[in-house]
């Protein structure tokens, strides 16, 4: 305990831009931060805001990998900043906002609008006309294994990492992406949802849906919640082929 450990100086380069300022343009600003034990990017960014530049904008809520707000490109990889330990990175770190989503400013993006559009597009809620009216009726029972499987998919926090990690959606922005396909798989599995296979096919049975997926698996590899995206997209693909074969 006698010797004081010399901490690294992190050079954090951040892609900054304020789209509401007509005079601003995208530029990179590098900040130097002394590393501390157990430092995450969340801590480092707060350090920058407190001591270097209070105009820097980024999103955080839970700082524990639960809310999905702090997704950004860390050295080109989509990650939740609160879960990235700086000790796992090189001293030169580059940060950029996730692509495709509406940029608010600097690292802050508006995923909510995009995700809401997605939910409306795939109608990610239980469809059951009869049950809607019978509020006093007990909910239909479900096998625990199936409930677990559905719950697993419900863990998605809509952080947008899978979207940023998907080559297909970068090229073809109309593609649903893993987050959308995951939602569809979740409701397709759910016996309480009474949508027919054909109705599901209408949502995902085209090249903006499951048949547009090229299985690059960026989504699977970057998902901070480790959702089984690869398996569920494969599941949907098999289901949709079966549906087409029936018709």
């Amino acid at each position, binding site marked *: 305990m006698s010797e004081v450990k010399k901490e690294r100086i992190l050079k954090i380069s951040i892609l900054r831009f304020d789209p509401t300022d007509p005079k601003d343009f995208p530029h990179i600003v590098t900040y130097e931060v002394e590393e501390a034990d157990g430092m995450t990017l969340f801590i480092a960014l707060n350090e920058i805001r407190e001591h270097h530049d209070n105009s820097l904008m980024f999103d955080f809520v839970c700082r524990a990998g639960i809310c999905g707000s702090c997704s950004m*490109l860390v050295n*080109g*990889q989509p990650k939740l900043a609160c879960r990235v330990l700086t000790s796992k990175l090189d001293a030169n770190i580059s940060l950029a906002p996730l692509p495709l989503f509406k940029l608010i400013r600097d690292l802050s993006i508006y995923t909510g609008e995009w995700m809401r559009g997605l939910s409306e597009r795939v109608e990610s809620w239980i469809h059951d006309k009869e049950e809607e009216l019978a509020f006093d009726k007990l909910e239909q029972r479900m096998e625990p294994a199936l409930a677990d499987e559905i719950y697993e998919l419900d863990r998605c926090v809509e952080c947008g990492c899978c979207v940023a*990690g998907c*080559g297909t959606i*970068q*090229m*073809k922005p109309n593609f649903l992406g893993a987050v959308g396909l995951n939602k569809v798989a979740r409701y397709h599995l759910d016996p309480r949802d*009474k*949508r*027919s296979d*054909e*109705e599901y*096919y*209408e949502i995902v*049975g*085209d*090249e903006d849906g499951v*048949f547009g*997926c*090229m*299985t*690059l*698996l*960026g989504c699977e*590899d970057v998902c901070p919640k480790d959702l*089984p995206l*690869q*398996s569920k997209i*494969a*599941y949907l*693909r*098999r289901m*949709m*082929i079966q*549906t*087409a*074969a029936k*018709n």
Partner: protein
Amino acid sequence: MREVKIDTTPARLDFIQSASGLILALFMWAHMFFVSTILLGKDVMYKVTIFFEGHYFFGESYPLIVTIVAGAIFAIFIAHAAVAMRKLPSNYKQYKILKNHIQSFKHGDTRLWFWQIFTGFAMFFLGSVHLYIIMTNSADIGPYASSDRIVSEWMWPLYILLLLAVELHGSIGLYRLALKWGWFEGTDAKKSRIKLRRMKYAITIFFLTLGFLTLAAYIKIGIEHKANAGERYHLETSVVEGVK
């Protein structure tokens, strides 16, 4: 619930892409084993050749069988190219986005896909040349005829490129096919993917090695046979026994 009339074409196209790719990839494995019989000697390769010409069924050789099979493969090849083309970047903007994404993301399977596009595009031309020549010259397959084609008729540069393209494209394609449909997924998809990826690399290395050894063998025969190019191979032993 309401009646829905769905358009099954996207599903069909996806199925055709996977099925045609699977057939072509498996055919290429078999094809590689057949052509590589030259490594076991000229006689073995010659026997394999006349086997596929129906010699052991009809008592004489019908190269027309090879023409028909090559034609069928050509048709599947064209079908696969037509449906797989949907996945290529369709303009410079998309291509640039993809390149940037690959460069900054540094993700193995995304990078592999770029190789698949690259090799697939190359095969539009390389594969067509090869298939057309085999279709129209199906009688000229054999230890000497094939070697002459490779050396004296200048097919070796094309075959080197085609071999690289086929083996990369085929093994990457099979790997992706398994993941796409959830084959061999087991209980742990992440573990099985690692296994599949290892297998993919092993298969690529195996077939590239076998392919280049085979090509070298034909080139060697072709160089030795250059002076007599056009002469056909015959099983010598049977002729000698017949005389006695």
